[in-house]
């Protein structure tokens, strides 16, 4: 069966209209995987998630591997900025100095003061905003098993799920990010 150009155009128009109709009733969705547990890598997923929530984008963060520390009540106030292999720091630190005892604490302190100077919210504040604005936060079950982390150690309102459950959510997402 052959289709004329006119018929083809007509079909495309119908499909496009139907697509728009289906999409209009649905919120945009963002799925982020947070896999790092250093202070500098805790900011991007939380900042993006909080901003998404403020933009009416449905958002969830899957905290896996070291990223689980970001939602660990006992650890997330003490996330450290790496002093080693971090050449992008505003004050570059040679690795041979960065490896000395106490340098990680110093890099962390410096980073916190830079952030505070321009009024960037703290990790705790960003997590509170996320919880208040409906960002879904999910702890990785497998990571919890590996690290021996209990659900009670995670901040309130966090769900626990595995890779398949998260991928099912992410499959419907318009934006997917791995941090």
């Amino acid at each position, binding site marked *: 069966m052959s289709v004329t150009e006119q018929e083809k155009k007509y079909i495309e128009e119908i499909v496009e209209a139907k697509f728009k109709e289906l999409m209009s009733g649905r919120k945009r969705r963002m799925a982020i995987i947070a896999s790092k547990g250093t202070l500098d890598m805790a900011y991007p997923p939380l900042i993006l998630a909080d901003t998404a929530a*403020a*933009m*009416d984008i449905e958002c969830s963060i899957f905290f896996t591997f070291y990223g689980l520390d970001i939602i660990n009540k006992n650890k997330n106030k003490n996330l450290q900025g790496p002093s080693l292999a971090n050449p992008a720091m505003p004050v570059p630190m040679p690795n041979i100095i960065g490896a000395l005892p106490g340098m990680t604490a110093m890099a962390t302190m410096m980073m916190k003061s830079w952030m505070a100077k321009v*009024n960037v919210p703290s990790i705790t504040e960003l997590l509170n905003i996320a919880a208040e604005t409906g960002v879904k936060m999910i702890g990785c079950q497998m990571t919890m098993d590996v690290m021996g982390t209990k659900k009670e150690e995670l901040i309130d309102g966090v769900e626990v799920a595995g890779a398949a459950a998260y991928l099912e959510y992410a499959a419907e997402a318009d934006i997917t990010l791995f941090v």
Partner: protein
Amino acid sequence: MEKRGNKPDEVLDSRKLSCPVPELKTKPAISKLEIGGILEVICTDPGSVKDIPAWAKQTGQELLEVVHEDSHYEFFIKKIK
């Protein structure tokens, strides 16, 4: 840019706040307004020139005007839904 004389119903002072805090504060501020109400957001963050319009576009609110002052930016957003 000349001010077009938009009279805001509410003013949100987001001076000295960095990305993404002005956008985070804009959402609750606009939701407090009635439909048709105008919110003025004042920012010093240079990124806000792109971020606030993007916020308005994504959330479906109308950005009426952006005023560039020497020390800050003023955004006038009309609540349309």
